[in-house]
Structures are given as structure tokens and as C-alpha cells.
């Protein structure tokens, strides 16, 4: 951070699907083994290359370390080795942030990753006067909203938080917190969260993204909605245009194509390319049409983040995720990794990050898949990766 933003900087704060995960004891042991082996390999290589003659070790530990083996000399020695950090997967549920060269702060989704994301934004803002955050919501599911009221940014009266999302997303925030309507139904107040608008002094406003041609706004006078925005029109924030589009998910869900100075980032979480037998099934048709929209928006994109929670074999229930028991994942609302790769190749996407990881997939299996993706990247000349939290991309 700190260094100048050329166009836009994309931060991944949360890429977990369904729930946050913390690595298990076995996974930590596997990761540790991996780094220990790497360290030992490097140490012995060094001894061989620099401290041996005719296959015999020579010299003392002092020669090797440049001092007694204590913290300082060991740290220095370690710094000289070529160690690669083991990949880190897991963490929080969906949250992305985009910083633009013209100083806009944009967040997509408020999964549990939003807490830390908002902390970083507050830190960057410091005491500055203009304090506007634009939050785009994909859909109301808990893993995309759960972090909202945990974020310090909602509790500073100087902050202006603009939320742009579909009706369900706005409602998910408003029904428990009343941040837009300043009203909470007696039956729901305090049940999901102790917090509500009176305890959250930031300024909140809402824009509902909706298909105004099909569902005109005037018919309804909704106390929750500040303004309406037609889904087919881009939202313009300075030099950035954000084009929403509908994807296919059990809960209405939006994808976003974000463009700044010709650079394009496409965000497409929670979308299912449905794999049913009956091509004429209404859900099958809806999914196909949504996939077509994803393709249109993602063609020639620089960066794509897309939900690939399952492998095909798991989707069809022939195989469980880290479990011997397979369950069909049809109509769970998520896509297959194989389809994401094929689609991104067809659409000539430069960098594709596959995310919304299933919480049950183990660390070593993710690595195994990621290694295949490294090879696929070499084969296709385009980057494919399992999305990892804390990734930062400068576009």
C-alpha cells in the first residue's frame, strides 16, 4: 500500500464461500511441513554449495552463520535463503475493495472480510474530510452481508456510506439494522444482532439497482430506498463506470463489470452454470441466459473473479468435498471450476481468480488444484488461480 495508484487497485479481503474458515490442526501441520522441508532443503543446499569440499563439510557453525546461533544471526541467515511462502487459503467470506486513481473507495460485498477492509479504509482516510464509501452488494445471503455491522466505519458520524444493491440486499441490511428506513419491526429487533441504526452513527443511504423497465419504481413508495437505478445503466463514480448485470442464483444476485481508464475487472460471485439434463427446464434456461450475460461482460476483461465452488464431479454428487459422501449440488447456486476455466479461455480473460471456495475443501486439495491451474496457465497463456485472501492487484 502507500504507493501511488495508477488506475485501480483491487484488494481481496474475503474469498470464502458460505462460511469463514480457520485452518485445522492437520492443515496447519501440512503447511508447516511444507515450509520446514523447504527450509531444510535450502539449508543443506547452502552447506553443500558453500561449506563443503569433496563431499565433506568443513568449517564451523560460526562460519556458516557468521556468529553464534542466536536470534540475530539465525534471522540473517534465513533472510539469505530463497524461501517461498506456502500459499494461504481460507479466511473470511466475500469482500472486495477497489481504490481508484481519482480517490474513490468502492467495496463489493460485506462478508466477514468487511471488518478488516473497513479498518484499512478508515486508516487511509485518517482525519480527511471527504469520507465517502460506495458499497455494491451482490445479493442478500449471509456470507455477503454478515460483516457489515462489525465494521468500525459504520460507527463514525463523519462517514457517508452509500449502498447500491438489489432490493433483497438492501432489505437484508435494513430489516435488522433499520439503517435506511429508521424502523425495525418489533419481531426482528435484536434477534440477529444487538445493533441498529440508533447505535450506528454513520450516514447511510441506499440506491436500489433494479430492472426499471420490467418493474417500474413509481408503483411503490418504499421507505427503505433512497433512489432507484436502472440495472442496464452504468453507475458512474468519477472515472469509474460500474455496470451491474444479473447472474443466476437462488437469491437474485448481481455481477459487476468495473472499468477505469480502459482496464476492466469483472466480479461474478454466486452464479451457477446449471448442469441439468433438460435444456428446456425454466431454471436451465435462466442459467444459460445469465451465463451469456457473464460472457458478454467478461469478454476481454483484464481480471475476473468468479465463483467456482465445485469440481464437476462434486456438482453431480459422484464425489464429496473432503468426504466420501457425494451430494448433488445442482441448484445450490454455484459453478464448477472446469466451466470457469473454459469460459475464461473462450472470453480471453487475462487473469482469472476462482473463488467462493467451499469451506470443506482442504488446504492440500486447494494446493493440488492450484498447481494444476499453474500448469493450465502455462498451457493457455492466461493466468488462472485459486483466489486467495489478501491478494492485491494493480490494474
Amino acid at each position: 500500500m502507500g504507493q501511488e495508484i495508477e488506475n485501480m487497485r483491487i484488494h481481496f479481503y474475503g474469498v470464502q464461500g458460505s462460511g469463514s474458515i480457520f485452518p485445522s490442526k492437520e492443515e496447519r501441520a501440512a503447511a508447516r511441513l511444507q515450509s520446514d522441508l523447504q527450509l531444510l532443503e535450502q539449508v543443506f543446499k547452502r552447506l553443500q554449495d558453500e561449506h563443503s569440499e569433496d563431499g565433506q563439510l568443513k568449517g564451523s557453525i560460526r562460519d556458516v552463520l557468521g556468529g553464534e546461533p542466536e536470534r540475530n544471526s539465525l534471522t540473517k541467515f534465513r533472510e539469505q535463503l530463497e524461501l517461498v511462502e506456502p500459499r494461504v487459503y481460507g479466511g473470511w467470506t466475500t469482500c472486495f475493495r477497489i481504490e481508484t486513481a481519482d480517490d474513490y473507495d468502492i467495496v463489493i460485498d460485506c462478508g466477514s472480510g468487511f471488518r478488516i477492509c473497513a479498518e484499512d479504509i478508515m486508516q487511509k482516510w485518517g482525519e480527511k474530510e471527504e469520507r465517502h464509501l460506495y458499497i455494491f452488494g451482490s445479493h442478500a445471503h449471509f456470507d455477503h452481508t454478515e460483516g457489515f455491522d462489525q465494521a468500525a466505519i459504520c460507527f463514525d458520524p463523519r462517514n457517508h456510506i452509500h449502498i447500491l444493491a438489489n432490493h433483497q440486499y438492501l432489505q437484508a441490511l435494513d430489516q435488522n439494522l433499520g439503517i435506511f428506513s429508521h424502523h425495525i419491526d418489533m419481531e426482528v429487533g435484536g434477534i440477529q444482532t444487538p445493533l441498529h441504526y440508533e447505535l450506528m452513527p454513520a450516514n447511510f443511504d441506499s440506491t436500489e439497482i433494479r430492472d426499471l423497465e420490467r418493474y417500474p419504481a413509481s408503483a411503490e413508495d418504499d421507505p427503505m430506498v433512497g433512489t432507484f437505478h436502472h440495472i442496464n445503466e452504468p453507475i458512474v463514480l468519477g472515472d469509474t463506470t460500474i455496470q451491474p448485470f444479473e447472474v443466476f442464483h437462488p437469491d437474485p444476485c448481481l455481477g459487476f463489470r468495473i472499468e477505469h481508464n480502459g482496464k476492466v475487472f469483472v466480479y461474478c460471485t454466486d452464479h451457477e452454470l446449471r448442469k441439468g439434463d433438460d435444456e428446456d427446464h425454466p431454471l436451465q434456461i435462466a442459467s444459460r441466459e445469465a451465463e451469456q450475460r457473464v460472457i458478454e461482460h467478461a469478454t476481454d476483461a483484464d481480471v475476473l473473479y468468479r465463483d467456482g465452488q465445485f469440481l464437476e464431479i462434486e456438482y453431480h454428487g459422484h464425489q464429496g468435498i473432503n468426504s466420501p459422501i457425494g451430494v448433488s449440488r445442482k441448484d445450490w447456486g454455484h459453478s464448477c471450476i472446469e466451466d470457469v476455466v473454459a469460459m475464461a479461455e473462450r472470453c480471453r480473460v487475462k487473469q482469472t481468480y476462482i473463488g467462493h471456495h467451499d469451506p470443506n475443501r482442504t488446504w492440500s486439495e486447494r494446493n493440488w488444484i492450484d498447481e494444476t491451474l499453474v500448469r493450465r496457465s502455462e498451457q493457455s497463456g492466461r493466468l488462472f488461480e485459486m483466489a486467495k485472501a489478501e491478494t492485491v492487484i494493480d490494474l
Partner: protein
Amino acid sequence: MIKKKIVMLGSWGVGKTSLVRQFVENVFEDKYLSTLGVKVDTKQVQVDGKEIKLMLWDIAGAEDNFSVPMNYLKGAAGCLLVVDGTRKESLQTALELKTLVEKEIGALPFVVAANKSDLQWQLSNADLEDAFPKPTDRWFSTSAKTGQNVEALFQEMAERVNA
């Protein structure tokens, strides 16, 4: 009809997908496209006059530090270990996989394909004899490209799982 799940195991790039394609569709592709996860193909074969449907689980190869997740092997009747004759280390990987399978799910009938016989090999026949001693183990020198021994390989596998 009897169905038998056969898992294809080996290092990346040894020719698992190519062997299946040659066996099932009689085609060979020079271009390498790594398998993601697993792809299942089927083919019927005859053993002792009986039809058997082989469910061929073409699993993405073992990576240098991350092996094939063992839950892919659930319900497998047999294991086809693939070695790339042009890459010595792929024999080591195959042996590691075999040990892993035995440890995790018990001994499975297995047959070995020493693949890419149409190319110059790093491995010698002696290396393979040592690794897979007769009479218990059986290895074939195969080429997914020319088709050499591909039928024989899968036929042997079918007979093993039917025994």
C-alpha cells in the same frame, strides 16, 4: 451389468488422459491440456464372455508437493498406475502413490503403464522390473500415441478387477 471404477494415477503429464482417449475414442492429441480434478469416461469390455463396464476415473496428476486427494479413490476396484518412460522421477511418484493408496484404503489390484514408448526413454526395463517385480506385478510398455499395448493394458485391468 457389472460396473468397476478404475482410477488412473500418476504424476502430471505422464499420459493418463491420452491413454483413456486412445482406449475409448481411438484418438491422440499432441497438445497437452492438464486435467482439472477428474474426468470420468466409460468403456465396455469383455472378460470371460461377460460384459464389464469400466468407469475410468482420469484424475489430475500428483503434483510435486501435493498428492492426489485419497477421497477420489473411494469405491475403486482397481488402479492404473501410469509412469512416463521419458521422466525418471515419474516412477518414484507412481511408487509413492501406490504406497499411499495401500496405506489409506488398502491394497487394490493394479496394473502399470510405462507410457510414451514411441519416444526415447530415460527409464530402463530393468528399472521397471525392479519396481514392479514379477509374478505379482504387471507392467506394459504403452504408447497413447501409436496405441501400442493400450488395449492390452485395459484388458489386463479388467481381468484383474474381475478375478
